[in-house]
């Protein structure tokens, strides 16, 4: 019952996060901004449209967004929440989650290469490179959590809060997960989700040729992925599993809201990094993760 509520919350509330981010950015920029529910309106509009499909493409282009959405949704099955453990959980399920995200990425990369366009090829090559660099960092974070809580499944690792004092090495993990959120969801400082210019092309340019229901799949999949990473960041620091259900849900949703606001603040406050600085950002995050892991293992 609780698991169903968690899944429903993810599927229903995920598009709200990008709305909150855009509102925060607009307010800080002195504008009124789009409605918070804009992503829902966009999805409804896209679903009602037909599609323009390139003549160069084949079945891969049609299947790519579907595979991407399905893989991201399946990764959500492994995510625990404030109500209780995940729908499916086992030792080492974080690896399945990471590889499901990899499958969704591969679907989009192949669909991009299918169009035969150099823009999309550029996006595909950058996405493949940065994702390959971000994956070890994600695994190091999960290992930190596993060492700290002595549990090997996501349901055991997340939502238990930091035991004992708020040791700094324990607080690095949410920060690193936040940096990974920015990387994997193509937010500033890694990529600019607003423009489609060459300088900012990683994720946005991969999906240039999709339209209609395909684009709806991609937008919704991106929202689900943002929810996933936001939940990972929130649950790694808030002890929602030790609270009574109502306050757990409240804390969790409050945490997600805070993460969205933080993303908006980061996007408003920073410019995008030069493309060659992004590996340095990931390297610094990885070094910090390695530092946390070494200190935790040393205890």
């Amino acid at each position: 019952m609780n698991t169903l509520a968690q899944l429903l919350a993810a599927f229903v509330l995920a598009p709200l996060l990008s709305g909150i981010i855009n509102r925060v950015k607009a307010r800080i920029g002195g504008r009124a901004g789009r409605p918070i529910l804009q992503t829902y309106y966009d999805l409804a509009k896209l679903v009602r449209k037909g599609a323009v499909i390139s003549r160069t493409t084949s079945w891969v282009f049609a299947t790519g967004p579907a595979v991407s959405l399905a893989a991201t949704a399946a990764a959500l099955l492994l995510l625990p929440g404030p109500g209780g453990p995940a729908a499916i959980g086992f030792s080492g399920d974080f690896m399945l989650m990471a590889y499901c995200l990899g499958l969704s990425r591969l679907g989009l990369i192949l669909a991009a290469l299918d169009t035969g366009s150099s823009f999309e090829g550029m996006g595909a090559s950058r996405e493949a490179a940065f994702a390959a660099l971000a994956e070890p960092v994600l695994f190091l974070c999960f290992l930190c959590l596993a060492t700290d809580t002595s549990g090997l499944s996501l349901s055991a690792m997340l939502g238990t809060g930091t035991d004992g004092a708020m040791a700094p090495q324990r607080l690095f993990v949410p920060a690193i997960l936040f940096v990974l959120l920015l990387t994997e969801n193509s937010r500033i400082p890694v990529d600019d989700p607003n423009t489609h210019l060459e300088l900012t092309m990683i994720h946005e340019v991969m999906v240039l040729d999709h339209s209609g229901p395909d684009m709806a799949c991609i937008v919704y999949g991106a929202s689900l992925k943002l929810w996933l990473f936001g939940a990972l960041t929130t649950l790694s620091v808030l002890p929602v599993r030790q609270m009574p259900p109502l306050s757990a849900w409240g804390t969790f949703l409050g945490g997600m809201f805070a993460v969205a606001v933080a993303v908006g603040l980061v996007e408003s406050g920073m410019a995008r990094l030069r493309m060659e600085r992004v590996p340095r950002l990931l390297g610094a995050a990885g070094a910090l993760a390695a530092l946390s892991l070494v200190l935790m293992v040393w205890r």
Partner: protein
Amino acid sequence: MELFESVLVALICVNLAYLAFTRLRTLARLTAVQGILLAWVPLLCAGPGDHGHALLLALAVLAIKGIGFPWLLARTLSRLEVNPVIEPYLGFNLSLVAGVAGLLFSLWLETRLPFPPGLFPPLLFPAALTSIFTGLTLVVARHKALTQVIGYLAAENGIFLLGTPLSGQGSVWLELSVLLDVFVAVFVMGIALHHISKTFESIDVGRFCSLRD
């Protein structure tokens, strides 16, 4: 003790940051951060009846390492016309890997050296050794003489950290260590940089070739 461990973890992070940042001004500010963190160490390490002495020492450390040296470094930076970006011999990601490897080595070394039990609080020896390694890495792996001075300061802070358990036993180790820092300030930075900039028009150590024949 939790606060002490947090300070030590912050010091290790500052060491990693030394290896990761690319601008000289940021490095100079990092020395200030390291100095301020080190000022806490005598206070947290003090024995029960020693608070006055520890407070005096902490204030001295803050004044010299936290304010004095960074100010001198910033003044030198603004006087010399230096390219603000560091050119490294060893790339940044590799330096970070070296830093983490140094931390691992220090942790391992702590288990192998025969200390009398209770001499060092946990994590002090690795933090100090990491500072020394980071300082030496900065000296070896970067081009500019100013970076080498900063590296020497970082290594010196590490040695200072190693000596803090001795502070409560009436030895003058820490005072001597602080005096050595003052010596560094006068001798190395003031005279040497002044001479280098006058004689050579640049502080790129790659262009020093009079050490070989």
